[in-house]
């Protein structure tokens, strides 16, 4: 019995290491083949500077899989002003669009990206219940006026048109793109995911952190008129 348990444990260990290795290796191969590594980092240990696109080693915590699959086939512009660390940022240079891949490649890549998660990332803080109409209106005022988020982030305004600054990532499709728990954590710890972020640090009440997160989650491009 004891021997069996030991064997099972050993087997599990080997299987787990193998799984990790395979995922990483596969990820590396496909990403290299498609040229992802030229702009994105897949590990926090590689060179922090000279990046021209966002980090992806926490893509599984950040993105919604369906959006990834769609985006990889038909890329939309997420950062209308470019990536903040790109040397061309603020120069007004034209934004280089993301390359597109086939449906099969998109599915494979999305599978791999969803496995890239951070240790200790807390899930389940933001539930699926959307803001009530009143709370949404209140959060809109906070987003646009009280905290001035709209100076750098595009969102959908009352006339259902995209409005706002372009130096930060656009939120007009954030509800389809991002996971609530990630928005919440990013808002709370803005330097955790990007130590060189250009965003101000906000110390808000827990209620505001949650309601602003849910407000961002309510932004979907199908609501644009």
């Amino acid at each position, binding site marked *: 019995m004891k021997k069996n348990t030991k064997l099972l444990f050993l087997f599990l260990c080997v299987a787990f290491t193998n799984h990790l290795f395979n995922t990483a290796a596969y990820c590396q191969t496909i990403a290299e083949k498609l040229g992802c590594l030229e702009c994105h980092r897949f590990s926090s240990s590689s060179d922090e500077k000279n990046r021209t696109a966002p980090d992806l080693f926490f893509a599984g915590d950040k993105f919604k899989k369906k959006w990834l699959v769609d985006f990889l086939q038909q890329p939309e512009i997420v950062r209308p002003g470019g990536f903040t660390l790109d040397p061309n940022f*603020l120069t*007004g240079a034209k934004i280089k669009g993301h390359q597109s891949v086939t449906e099969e490649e998109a599915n494979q890549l999305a599978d791999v990206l969803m496995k890239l998660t951070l240790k200790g990332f807390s899930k389940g803080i933001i539930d699926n219940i959307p803001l009530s109409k009143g709370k949404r209106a209140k959060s809109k005022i906070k987003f*646009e006026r009280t905290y*001035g988020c*709209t*100076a750098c982030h595009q969102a959908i305004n009352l006339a259902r048109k995209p409005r706002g*600054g372009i130096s930060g990532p656009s939120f007009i499709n954030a509800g389809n793109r991002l996971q609530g728990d990630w928005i919440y954590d990013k808002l709370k710890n803005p330097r955790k995911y990007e130590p060189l972020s250009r965003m101000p640090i906000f110390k808000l009440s827990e209620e505001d952190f949650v309601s602003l997160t849910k407000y961002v989650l309510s932004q979907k491009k199908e609501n644009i008129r």
Partner: protein
Amino acid sequence: MKKLKNSILQIILAIIVILALYACGQSQKEEHTPSPPITKAPPEPIIQEKLVSHPVTKKTRQTYQWYCTQCHGVKGKGDGINSPHVTVPPRNHTKASYLETRSDQELFDAISEGGLKIGRAPCMPSWGNTFDKETIWSLVRYIRELCKCEAV
């Protein structure tokens, strides 16, 4: 003995009644007088001394270039990449005719607490949690360098 017990009881009763009355009075008071708004500490008088001790350094310029330029532009002319998209145009920091009408304390408050708190545009977020006071004072100094002006 019984007398003593009675008098103790009477004293306790009296205390309870007094306390109850006092509590009622207080709660009524709270209902009628709204709590005062949180007032900011009055500006400290010797601003000039502070500015001298926080001169514009390489770090000040880097801070301005990294954060402020998104809206105020690389040269501070109010023409950053966000400027065409915000409801109120970002301030042109080279325009002396406006900036000389603002005190250093007002510029400090605008950076630290955001535009809305000082009755200006809400697009200017608060940076008080991002930069320390010394950095903000040196940014005020840098704006004075850009506008080549002082508060009148």
